[in-house]
Structure formats: C-alpha cells, structure tokens
C-alpha cells in the first residue's frame, strides 16, 4: 500500500539506471545508513563491535569479493581463506617495515598485493572451469597457508609463529590494538565497506560487470561478441582478490589483533565465505550483506536462545548450534536456492501489489 511506484516518472536514462530507482527503496537505504553512521557508534560497546558489527562488515567485504568472482564471473573459488591470509600478512609486513605509513594506504596496498597473487592463481581459469577450477583454487588455499606457516620472514621469525597488529593511529584515533575504541574500529570498517560496496555495484552494472556476466552465462558467445576471456577472467580475479585482501587485512589488524595462519585463514574460512555468498545470493552486492548478516547473527541468536532461554549448557549449545545452522542452510537452499537477495526481490514485487493479489 505504501510501496507504490505510481507518480515516479523516469525522464532520463540516468535515473532509470540508478542503483535504487524506486524512491521508497532510496529512503529505506538512507535511513539504514543514517542509523549505521549516526546512531550505532554512540551505543556500540566491545561485545557488539567484536561479536557482531566487525565480523558482519568484514565478512560482507570478503563476500563482495568472492561474489565478484563466483557470482558475477562464474569462476568457482575455494581459495578465499588463503587470499585473506595474503592481505593479512601483507598488512603485517607493511606495518612492521613502515610503521609511519598511513593505515588506509597499508590496507589498499595489501589489497593490491592480494590482487596480484589472485591473478597468478587465476591463470588456470583460462583453461579449466567449474569444479576443476575449484580444485585448482583449493591448491592455492593450501599452498598459501603452508607458505605463511613455513617461511619465517612472513611472521618476522616470531617464536609463536603468530602475527600481531602494531598500534595504528589516524587523525588522533587509535584504530588497532586492544585499547582502540569500539566505535572507532566500527566506523573505520564501515567506511571501507560502504565505499567499496558502492564501487562494487558501479563496476558490476557497467561495462566490466557485463563482460563478467557474459563470461559466466555463455563464454563462447561472449568471446564472439568481442570480450577477451583473458581480460575478463583475470580482471575478475584481480578485483575479487583486492576485496578479499582488504577484508583479510581488516580481519587481522582491526578485529582479531593477532592471528595464526592455519587457525584464522584455514579452509573453513573459505567455506564460510562461500556459504555467505550462496545464501545471500550469487551475483548480487546486496546478497553479500544479507548473507554475512545471516551467518554472523544466526549462531549468536541461536546460542543466546539456547543458553539463556532454555538454560542448556554452553558446550552442548555450541554443538546443537552447529547442527541447527547446517539444517537451516539446507532448508533455506531448498526453499530459495537463489538466496536472500532473491527473497528480498520477491518480497518487493509482492509488496508493490499488496493488498491485492494481482
């Protein structure tokens, strides 16, 4: 009833191609952004930052990266954890080698380094597809984790084999380290996610995004209309790895503070982000956010419900939680294989007509 497009006329192609062409959607997004920027920072505490907001933002960023590669360009990858590790270790090396360097620049450079590693491991995609490519990227995952474990230079030969973030200050605010304020960490990550979310959307709906989707939907036809598979595929690997590298960097430096490669960037990390992308919706930027919210919030809600609501022991609750998560993912994928983004789209279509059925 309130969600009507009547009276909203598009008089230029520009308004027709806006990200949110419908005014109600626009206001909804503005409201969420306003809450995220002006309300949340005043109420956020350590628990909310570390358990909910930072993981949500960082996984959303990583999911956007994987979505570019798998959702838009159709190249299945299981190397996300490894690429996040590249971002994290690049950040660590840059932090310790150039302590004076601007932290934003460090993160962008870490993204750039990961992009180059991504291109390198993307080369097999020119010859192999689908599951075979997934296996090739799996090799990247294991190789990178092994490399950061074995070669002492990457963790500055520290005795524990761990990397830990040095203290980074920008504009008088401390961003990394245990003393950093949760609101600062939150806003820093939020800034990255918003800027790069917008960039991802822009790339995806322009020439480059169309080339990726063409390769995904029918690579032979794409080549015949003049798209070079080499450029499109390696471009997708580069941009995707750039995002994943940045998220790995934030994950290590801002959220965790210290990391050990096998534990923080193992294969389970790759799967987690793949699940986020699939549950959120392949080939949508919005889906990366919805999927990340689901995968971060659901275990916490389940745990709180079982421990506080049903007074189940925390250890038992943890096991039940994993089982329930698995079941929910399966049921959800049977009901809506195209993920939350599709569910959202269907809801909007229904809402336009509501309360009438047609």
């Amino acid at each position, binding site marked *: 009833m309130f969600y009507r497009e009547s009276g909203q006329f598009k008089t230029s*192609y*520009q308004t027709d*191609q806006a990200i949110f062409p419908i005014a109600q959607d626009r206001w909804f997004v503005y409201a969420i952004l306003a809450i995220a920027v002006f309300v949340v920072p005043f109420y956020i505490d350590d628990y909310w930052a570390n358990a909910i907001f930072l993981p949500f933002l960082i996984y959303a960023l990583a999911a956007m990266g994987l979505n570019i590669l798998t959702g838009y360009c159709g190249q299945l990858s299981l190397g996300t954890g490894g690429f996040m590790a590249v971002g994290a270790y690049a950040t660590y090396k840059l932090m310790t080698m150039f302590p004076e360097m601007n932290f934003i620049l460090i993160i962008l450079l870490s993204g750039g380094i990961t992009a180059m590693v991504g291109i390198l491991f993307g080369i097999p995609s020119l010859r192999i597809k689908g599951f075979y490519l997934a296996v090739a990227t799996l090799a990247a995952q294991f190789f990178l984790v092994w490399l950061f474990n074995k070669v002492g230079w990457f963790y500055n030969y520290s005795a524990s084999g761990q990397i830990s973030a040095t203290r980074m200050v920008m504009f008088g605010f401390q961003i990394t380290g245990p003393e950093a304020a949760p609101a600062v960490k939150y806003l820093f990550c939020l800034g990255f996610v918003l800027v790069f979310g917008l*960039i991802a959307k*822009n*790339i995806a709906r*322009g*020439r*480059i995004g*169309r*080339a990726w*989707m*063409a390769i*995904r*939907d*029918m690579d*032979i*036809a*794409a*080549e*015949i*209309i*003049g*798209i*070079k598979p080499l450029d499109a595929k390696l*471009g997708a690997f580069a*941009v995707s790895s750039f995002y994943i590298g940045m998220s790995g960097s934030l994950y290590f430096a801002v959220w965790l503070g210290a990391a050990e490669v096998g534990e923080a960037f193992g294969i389970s990390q790759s799967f987690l982000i793949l699940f986020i992308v699939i549950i959120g919706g392949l*080939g949508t930027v919005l889906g990366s956010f919805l999927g990340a919210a689901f995968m971060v919030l659901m275990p916490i809600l389940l745990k709180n419900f079982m421990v506080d609501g049903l007074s189940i022991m925390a250890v038992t609750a943890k096991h039940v939680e994993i089982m329930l998560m698995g079941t929910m993912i399966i049921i959800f994928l049977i009901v809506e294989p195209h993920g939350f983004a599709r569910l959202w789209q269907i809801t909007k279509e229904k809402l336009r007509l509501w309360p009438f059925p047609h």
Partner: protein
Amino acid sequence: MAQERKIGDVILRVDDISLSFGGVKALSNISFDVKEHEVRAIIGPNGAGKSSMLNVINGFYHPQEGTITYLGNTRRQMKPHEAARQGIARTFQNIALFKGMSTLDNIMTGRNTMMKKGLFWQALNLGPARKEEMEHRQAVERIIEFLEIEHIRKTPVGRLPYGLQKRVELGRALAAEPSLLLLDEPMAGMNIEEKEDMCRFVLDVNDEFGTTIVLIEHDMGVVMDISDRVVVLDYGCKLADGTPDEVRSNKEVIDAYLGVSHD
C-alpha cells in the same frame, strides 16, 4: 527490391577453405565471395558444413588450408574476439544469449568492445564513464525500438519465449554495428508470423544500416525471397553458387535436395 540496393565490392572472400576434425572432413576446398551490402545465403542439407563455414569466418574454427580475405586483410586464423573487433557479428543456431541478464544488458554487452573507459572511472561511475554509458544506452534504445522489443527491456532473457530470444540475439549482434552480420538459421523453429517478422528485420537491417548479411536458412521460400546470391554446400563441397533463380534450376542442387536415382 533487391535490385534497387547498391551492391558494392567484394568485402569477404574465402579461398580454398578446408577444415577437418580428425578424420572427418567438414569442408573441402570451399571458395566464394560476399559483396558489400548484399544478402548472401548458404544453404545445404543437414551436415553440409554450413555452420562450420560461419565458424571459420568468425574465427571460431581454424581451417587447415585456405585463406579468408576480409576488408583487404588475408588470414587463415584469428581469434573470435579479433573478428568481432573487425566488425563481424553473428547469431547462433541454438540461442546463445546471456540468460541471467536482462534484454537491455544483453544488447548493451554487444557494445562492450566500443566502450573504452577503464576500471577507475567505472568504479566511480562519474564523469566520462557515466557519459559513455548513457551514449551507448541511447544507441541500444534505438535498436530496441527498431526490433520492437521495448516491453521486455528489463526482463531476464531466460524467461522470454523462443521467438523473442531470437530477436534479442539479433539485437545483440546489431549493437556492435557490424559491417558483416552472420546469421545462423535466424528463422529456425518459428511460426509463419515470426518468420515474416524476422525476414522484415533482416531486410530492414540490410536496407537501413547497409549491413552485409550472410545467412544460413532451411526455409527455401525465405532464402529465395530475401537473398541476392546463394551458395549451396553438400558434404563439405560447394555444389552451386549464383542467384536464387540459377541455383533453383541447377541440376546438382535438385539432386542433392530431392535425391537422385542411381540406375
């Protein structure tokens, strides 16, 4: 009508093309030419090598022997995307659209090679990239209008009926503003009205944009009506080449199509 159009010089010449897959000879010593602005048909029974011939022209198959001269450049091999950049566009026998994308995006993708702005401007979607996008959108809207598919602009092509998908595919090929358009059975599987629509579009493209067209078609009525010259292939060999009337009365062609008694 066909006589009124000005047929120009030869723009495409294939010489002695031979193509085989392992032991199977798909094409043997095929030569013919295509003149500017004409509608050239390739016909022949199933398995005659018609689609292989198109695949050779746009670089998808690499012939073992022979050369292809297009716009004065002689070559034997090229990559499909190079052919596309030189102005060769095509449609497929089995529709090869990008199923997850809308009609608009499919046709916009046809113009991808003409868009030049790099990743940086694309990412910001400001200034040059946005301006470029809007210019191409305008060109695409003209094609959408021309093909009368305004109502399905935002529909994912996977949901469209067959006849419309064929039309969108033609639109995607036209979007590249090709000088040579290869159509592989554009009317296959269509009812009579859809065929008439498609014929009209093909002739209009040829008339309005002056695009040279090479088409493969099984409907003899259509072929004889709209083409200027016809090549007949059978078992990978050229049987006949000439105007529709010449081909129709050629004895070998009649034998190939109707069979010949071996007595």
